[in-house]
């Protein structure tokens, strides 16, 4: 199992004890060593005192999907010793705090136990309960550096960047703790282990960033000026990041006042209302929420759809239904967002696979919302949004200008005889809009009640149909404008494999395995809804298409059957929805299960 730059380990701690900083330091050190790496924070919905884990996978080959196979576990939380030890792969290593003896019942013959008395060492070296606890968790960074050959100079450099000269005392105490762990391991154990790191240069053009920060940066670059939100895991850090960027990038030079209004609303309903009001008044505006928030925003989403108000909703999905598991990941809002709100509605949705696409799609979402004058949903998830990913550096084209869509300014209004808000002047389903306050001729009455193409209230069937039928045409026409699917074809493929969002890594890794086993797949990752023609063509080109996603009810597959003409029998669902990021083995077992049953059925048919 164990290879240089090909292994996974996991750190079990108690939340609220500083372990997040320690784990981040390890991730960043490996990243700086130029080795492909991924980190998954498996945390509780709690502030302090409950078990939390951080999983790190190192893969020189670039396999950075989650793996459930751990070669090393750092067990810092006695409460979870039993579970942690059980999860360890045979032949693996268990690093634990040997200040207290490990119960005999927990021993495993096929595992090497590495005890380091972190608590004892820190009691001797540090003062005060809080510092001793924090430093105990920093100390294991040092031990891991020794065991895995993490470059101590890189660690030292990162600490210096974090604390600088101004917080030199913190730099010193942190590095002291790291050295304690490092030296103890070097003295007592054979270091490094067979699983270890070697510097590479894979990350020179990459960054380490979470999807929520990336999406927030996209909002800054897209020119968004109003954000309204209600705190909800796992989306909160998106607005937090937007706030942070705005403090640096959006201050008016002379006054120091802000060029963005960030409003914490009283609930998700109000957040949606604020966004709709702001967009109606001409600003690029967005909210960030998760599934429960989208449910609450439903009524307003229908209003924005019907009254044709452009606005952007980030849905950082988490496990449902109801409150579900707020700190676990799923792709469970695909259907919810596609048709959110009562009545006939359909919405533009974008599905980023990683933080880089969160940045890009954030910008795209505002352009699409304004071009099509409708709500746009960006669906990421807890894994993409809150975990740190190694992705290529973001790029920006200074030639970019926002696509504000069909907006009539004062000049244009002056020249036309009369303005009608919902008239399909160009025959493309998209009417012209005006911004309040610009010109007396631009005034119109925005309403969620039945309206004619002239913007007047109506209860007349013909008038009503004219508007809603145009809306259907308008939204369907957006298929040509949403990000095209990513397709990788080969001439001799046996099957199609379709997936979405953050499953990408797991699916690619699984495909390598399947192809090594002689099975040939074409690959398609859907990036937008309504589906482009390519989606249908891809499905039609394969007798059987696997659809890989993270929810119980095969929502992407359902959407494909509803929105393309593909026969249901030609789609096979592969799902994992337990709340952790998808792993390659989920894909493999799903594909094998289906193909195995097909073989069995064929045999049965032959014998009958």
């Amino acid at each position: 199992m164990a290879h240089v730059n090909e292994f996974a380990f996991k750190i079990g701690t108690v939340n609220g004890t500083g372990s997040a900083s320690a784990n981040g330091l390890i991730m960043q050190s490996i990243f700086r060593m130029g080795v492909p790496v991924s980190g998954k924070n498996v945390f509780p919905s709690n502030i302090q005192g409950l078990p939390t884990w951080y999983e790190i996978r190192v893969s020189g080959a670039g396999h950075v999907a989650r793996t459930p196979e751990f070669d090393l576990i750092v067990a810092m939380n006695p409460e979870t010793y039993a579970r942690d030890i059980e999860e360890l792969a045979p032949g693996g290593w268990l690093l634990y705090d040997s200040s207290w003896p490990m119960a005999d019942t927990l021993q495993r013959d096929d595992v090497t136990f590495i005890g380091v008395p972190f608590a004892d060492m820190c009691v001797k070296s540090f003062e005060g309960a809080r510092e001793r606890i924090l430093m105990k968790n920093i100390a294991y960074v040092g031990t891991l550096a020794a065991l895995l050959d993490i470059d101590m100079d890189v660690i030292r450099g990162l600490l210096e960047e974090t604390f600088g000269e101004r917080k030199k005392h913190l730099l010193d105490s942190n590095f002291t703790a790291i050295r304690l762990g490092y030296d103890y391991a070097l003295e007592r154990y054979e270091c490094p282990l067979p699983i270890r790191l070697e510097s590479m240069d894979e990350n020179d053009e990459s960054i380490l960033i979470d999807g929520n920060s990336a999406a927030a940066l996209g909002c800054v670059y897209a020119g968004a000026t109003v954000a309204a939100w209600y705190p909800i895991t796992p989306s909160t850090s998106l607005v937090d990041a937007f706030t942070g960027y705005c403090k640096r990038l959006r201050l008016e030079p002379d006054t120091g006042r802000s060029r963005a209004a960030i409003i914490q609303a009283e609930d998700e309903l109000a957040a949606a209302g604020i966004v709709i009001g702001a967009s109606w008044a001409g600003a690029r505006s967005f909210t960030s929420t998760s599934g429960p928030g989208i449910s609450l925003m439903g009524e307003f989403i229908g209003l924005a759809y019907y009254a044709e108000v452009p606005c952007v909703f980030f849905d950082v999905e988490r496990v449902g239904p109801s409150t579900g598991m707020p700190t676990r990941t799923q792709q469970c809002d695909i259907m919810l967002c596609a048709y959110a709100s009562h009545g006939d509605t359909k919405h533009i949705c974008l599905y980023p696979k990683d933080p880089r696409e969160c940045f890009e799609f954030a910008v795209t979402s505002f352009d699409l919302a304004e071009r099509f004058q409708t709500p746009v949903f960006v669906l990421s998830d807890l894994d993409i949004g809150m975990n740190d990913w190694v992705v290529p550096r973001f790029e920006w084209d200074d030639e970019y200008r926002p696509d504000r869509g069909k907006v009539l300014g004062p000049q244009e209004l002056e020249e036309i005889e009369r303005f009608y808000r919902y008239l399909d002047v160009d025959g493309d389903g998209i009417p012209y809009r005006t911004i309040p306050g610009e010109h007396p001729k631009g005034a119109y009455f925005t309403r969620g009640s039945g309206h004619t193409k002239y913007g007047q209230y109506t209860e007349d069937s013909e008038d009503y149909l004219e508007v809603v039928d145009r809306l259907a045409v308008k939204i369907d026409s957006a298929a040509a404008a949403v990000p095209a699917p990513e397709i990788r074809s080969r001439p001799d493929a046996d099957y199609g494999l379709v997936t979405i969002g953050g499953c990408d890594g797991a699916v690619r890794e699984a495909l390598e395995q399947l192809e090594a086993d002689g099975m040939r797949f074409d690959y398609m990752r859907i990036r937008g809804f309504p589906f482009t023609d390519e989606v249908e063509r891809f499905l039609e080109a394969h007798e059987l298409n696997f659809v890989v996603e993270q929810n119980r009810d095969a929502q992407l597959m359902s959407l494909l059957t509803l929105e393309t003409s593909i026969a249901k029998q030609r789609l096979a669902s592969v799902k994992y929805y337990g709340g952790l990021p998808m792993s390659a083995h989920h894909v493999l077992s799903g594909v094998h299960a289906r193909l195995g049953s097909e073989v069995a059925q064929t045999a049965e048919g032959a014998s009958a």
Partner: protein
Amino acid sequence: MTHIAKPRVLHPGLEKNELGLTRRDYEGSMSTLCAGCGHDSVTAALIEAVWELAIPPHRAGKMSGIGCSSKTPAYFLSESHGFNSVHGRMPSVAAGANAANRGLTYIGVSGDGDSLSIGLGQMCHAIRRNLDLLYIIENNGVYGLTKGQFSASADRGSKSKRGVPNEQPPIDPVLLALSIGASFVARSFSGDRDQLVPILKAGIRHPGLALVDVISPCVTFNDHVGSTKSYAYTREHFREASEAAFVAPKDFVAEADEITAELEPGDVRDVRMHDGSAIRFRRVGEDYDPTDRDRAYDYVRERQLAEEVVTGLLFIDPDSRDQHDVLGTVEQPLWEIPFEDLCPGAAALSSIMDNYR
């Protein structure tokens, strides 16, 4: 809410405001409310108020939720953008519009169902946010469009049209607003235009949220004997605490005497706004001080127990800080900021990327 366009008939002799516009220029389409509805009087008072203030019609934003009251933005300012949103959610839509474009005059019209039941939370938080908005509650104690159910403002013991008394205590928007820090609170009566127009003008000019609770009887479902929101009951129990007028900055020089003349002689006092304008009061109730929140609360409560409806400009905070003051946003309306000033550009992105190494 079928649309009936109002015929535009030119009367050369109509009085013009300083923009050269007549009251007709501030009207909307024909009201489809019941004949005699209090809301139509509020609409008329609003038209008078914005005409007198000479607000350019297209520089106002009319916001509403759902219900009879929320229909009224269609009946005034046809050259303004209007937003008839969803039930109880006018405050958030107004907050967003104001965030994006602080340059417009926002007029929100809501009702007691819209604001005190389904939208109670939104109303409270809009008050806390203190966005620059005239927030009118057309308060009639019933749900009209759904045929006469009690609303949350119905007084205990007030009888429905069928004679059934309301058993639940009312939510009083004035007391509620005072208790959560509203910067401007007034109550008036749709039947008292002389009182209502100056209050609306003051509310529009107040830099923050001006909550104006207007008792506006529902002639169809709540104007009978036994109702405490009828025309007759309100007239009989009406008690004026203060009279108010709005004084524009220039008027201090040119027309101060004339403005003062709007008020009956008495104890006249100015509350000055930051822009140099003022709200001018005359106390009607003994010792009433509309800048003293606690005494205003006590007075309204005390008179309420004596079954009186206290009206007038009841409270104003001269140091009101609105949503933008609190958020620290720029003076320029956000939506007007050129993209070049919003997007940091490629070079900045490159250095941001270095922070994620």
